[in-house]
């Protein structure tokens, strides 16, 4: 439940039970990684060695406000609308 909260997912009782069993199986399998000796091995987060891709800090092509807002009906005056968050 704690993890579901972190992931911003709502789960009911049935979901929790089923998912917990399946995740248990998956994590038990993942635990086989503990057998591997990784002493002194550097973690590899990426397959290619990249350096920062830099460019001039100039304005390029960009989406207009209308296109940026085109994915939702809930908008007003060029902004996205969300439920009230301060009282």
């Amino acid at each position, binding site marked *: 439940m704690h*993890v*579901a909260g*972190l*992931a*911003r*997912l*709502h*789960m009911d009782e049935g979901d929790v039970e089923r*998912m917990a069993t*399946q*995740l248990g*199986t*998956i*994590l038990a*399998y*993942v*635990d*086989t*990684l*503990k*057998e*591997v000796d*990784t002493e002194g*091995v*550097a*973690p*590899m*987060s*990426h*397959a*290619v060695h*990249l350096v920062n*891709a830099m*460019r001039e800090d100039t304005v390029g092509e960009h*989406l207009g406000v209308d*296109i*940026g807002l*085109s*994915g*939702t009906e*809930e908008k007003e005056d060029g902004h*996205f609308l*969300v*439920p009230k*968050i301060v009282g």
Partner: protein
Amino acid sequence: MSLTKGLHIHEARKHLDAGDFTAEELTRQTLQAISEKDPLINSYITVAEESAMADARLADEKIRKGEAGALTGIPLGLKDLILTRGIRTTCASRMLENFDPPYSGTVAEKLKDAGAVITGKLNLDEFAMGSSSETSWFGPVKNPWNLSHIPGGSSGGSAAAVAAGLCLGSLGTDTGGSIRQPAAHCGVVGLKPSYGRVSRYGVVAFASSLDQVGPMARSVEDCAILLQAIAGHDPKDSTSVNVPVPDYYSLLSKDLKGLTIGLPVEYHGAEGVHPEIRSAIGEAVRVLEASGAKTVEVRLPHMAYAVAAYYVVASSEASTNLARFDGIRYGYRTPEAASLLELYEKSRSEGFGEEVRRRILVGTYALSSGYYDAYYNKALKVRALIAKDFTDAFAGCDLIAAPVTPAPAFALGEVADDPLTMYLADIFTISANLAGIPGMSVPCGFSAKGLPMGLQLLGKPFDEATLLKAAYAYEKEAAWDRGLADPAAGEKS
């Protein structure tokens, strides 16, 4: 005359240029084939009839003016997680059921600039998370060779449509085998390029350190043509690498003299490999030897851990990437929510399907405080060892030959409720993504039940040319092309 009957891209090119038929005629027949056959296999989520016909008319004009390139007027389909302005892009998810993207992906733009006709958007596992194309919000894809079997996944629609002639070629994406595995199950050729070879700008991200876009087609030549069109550095994708792109087509050759092919003992001796796959791969290796290649045994000692490392890395990255779906800016938004938090939680829970939620949970857990080192960091270290295994193996060979899958396609629903067994279907393909190397699937026969099987070739980083060359030699020698799959025949049997 049926124009789409088993036509290859390179053959269609000659016919179009010679004026045997027009791009409009070819496109109309392809759309006709889709409307007749796709109801049986469900390979398309969206058929873009109007824009396809407009593409075709533009192509005919180019052809008339003598300005045609390799793909001008060729009907191609795109996996439905490649953004296409003007054609909805769903990722096979309720979350994006009606999403009209604000821009197109670079690969889609490149195909369009090359004059291709985009027939529509192809079905997949939701957000590309799966190996069977059963988790789509738009219903499962069926294998055109046998409708009671899965087509593989996640690019199942891209493979099935090509196999059945519902487009001449397609693009898929491969995060752990999602091009190669469905290609094998549907009897088509599929290529996962090296990480960094093809731009992913405008391709919805699943696991950003593993995802690659690649071609699927009915011949190696066609894959070479498609890769040529999409490969290369893109300033809009900082992970695309700025290295020269060779002329793949001109490097195809039937002579493999001087080439050394490594056979990993861990793959060829693996337990649980179906006897028909084992014998088909053995036969394929003999064909490669007959074409002049030498074979040597190689070792990949950490392969047994590839699936476990992959599921930690891929799920962790997926949980982060999919955090963007908040129900606010685009995509599904729950109709009722009292607070912002409830809006997030309900939109995400109602918008994402079960497998996507499961992977988000695994990834969130692996990245959470207290578990990060034990899971995520540990998986990255094992990944480094897997990559080193390949570097060591390639010191003694030019490419590696292996099975694509442990068994021919399983039946629909057979393992749908067993996530771990589903994950293990990718055991031979996953390590290439972890290491970032290119991999290919080439048809290497049919099982006794009539299901296709695939030979996998793995290459050195950015050496797609050698993969294509060996695959071409094999394809010409083995001649496995049985023409198009006929879903209607599968229905009767």
